[in-house]
């Protein structure tokens, strides 16, 4: 029958519309939190700036360099400038200059400069996956809109650095596993 399809379609829309209220009124106090999740019924929207989607641990945006603060307040980066991340990076957007001993000119295990061109970075996570020192990790901060590009989209080392505590906060499970491994490695030597 002509018109039946229209009625059916509208019925779906109305069902969707009313189920929001049903879920909100009878769903108890968690009903709002269920929006945009598997349990959602009806309204699906997440009111972004006020609330945001729960970000899973593995989420990745731009990489960052993990550092710890030394006693003198100096940043101690974990990176040893081994160059693996710059070799595996599919877009070759990592540039590393290895630090040299000022006297002997021999390379030392620390990076003088470390750049990531975020205009090329494809957020693939390969660098973090293959870094043997857990020195480079993927960030969760997706709020990276900017008014200018120019050189500001080549992130230098200070901008890439984030403290270890931050890493522990955004990736607690990974952090725990890594720390356990570290401890296990350190044990037999003592």
């Amino acid at each position: 029958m002509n018109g039946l399809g229209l009625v059916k379609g509208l019925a779906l829309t109305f069902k969707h519309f009313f189920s929001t209220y049903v879920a909100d009124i009878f769903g108890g106090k968690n009903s709002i939190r269920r929006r945009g999740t598997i349990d959602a019924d009806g309204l699906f929207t997440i009111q972004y700036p006020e609330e945001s989607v729960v970000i899973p641990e593995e989420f990745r945006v731009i990489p960052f360099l993990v550092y710890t603060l030394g006693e003198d307040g100096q940043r101690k980066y974990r990176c040893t400038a081994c160059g693996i991340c710059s070799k595996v990076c599919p877009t070759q957007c990592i540039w590393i200059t290895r630090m040299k001993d000022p006297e002997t000119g021999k390379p030392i295990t620390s990076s003088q400069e470390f750049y990531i061109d975020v205009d090329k970075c494809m957020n693939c996570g390969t660098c973090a996956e293959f870094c043997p020192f857990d020195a480079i990790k993927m960030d969760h901060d997706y709020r990276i809109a900017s008014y200018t590009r120019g050189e500001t989209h080549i992130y230098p080392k200070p901008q890439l650095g984030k403290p270890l505590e931050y890493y522990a906060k955004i990736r607690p499970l990974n952090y725990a596993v890594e720390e356990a491994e570290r401890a296990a490695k350190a044990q037999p030597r003592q």
Partner: protein
Amino acid sequence: MEANQDLYKPGYEIPEELRQQVTITTLERIYNWGRSNSMWPMMFGLACCAIEMICTAASRYDFSRFGMEVMRPSPRQADVMIVAGTVTKKMLPQIVRLYNQMSLPKYVLAMGACACGGGPFKEGYNVVPGIDTYIPVDVYVTGCPPTPQGLLNGLLTLQKKIKMEQMKETGWYSKEPVVEVPIPILGPDVYDPRKSDLIYTETHKPEVLSTEESTMEGESK
């Protein structure tokens, strides 16, 4: 951007007793408030990022909450062009044409690493290293792809920018005709008519140094 902060100070003190009843604002502020909350994006997707743009428009992130639900396929009716995806040389003339056809005020948001600066495919032979080489860009949102929330954040950043604009500085009430961006031409490679002279001198250099070799020399520096 910060210099414009006093745009919103009407410069008039409201008497204490009237504070509850009267608000004073500037015309500028109302005008910008209206504009920034009714931006119509152009329905225009190029690549993977466009899918995330659609997701931003869809029910979960729903940018109609910011007055942006009217996505127009026609550039004449659009205020903001979200360049979502890789800009290829073959597509470039069309994008520039679309930009020219948008009426003032117009804004461009470069979404994704590709539109910002070439992205992962930058080294390819058919990819434009950033749309800002050809048209002015207001907000850059990097990421590959930026998540819908990232894009929303970018759009809010754009709103912030609009709120800081001053009517007398913006050009769209002037009688002067709008200067169009010349449309790039697809030749042996894409070329910008503005750069014709440079191209001519480079390709007609007396030495045997052809363009290819000069790039290679640049690399080894």
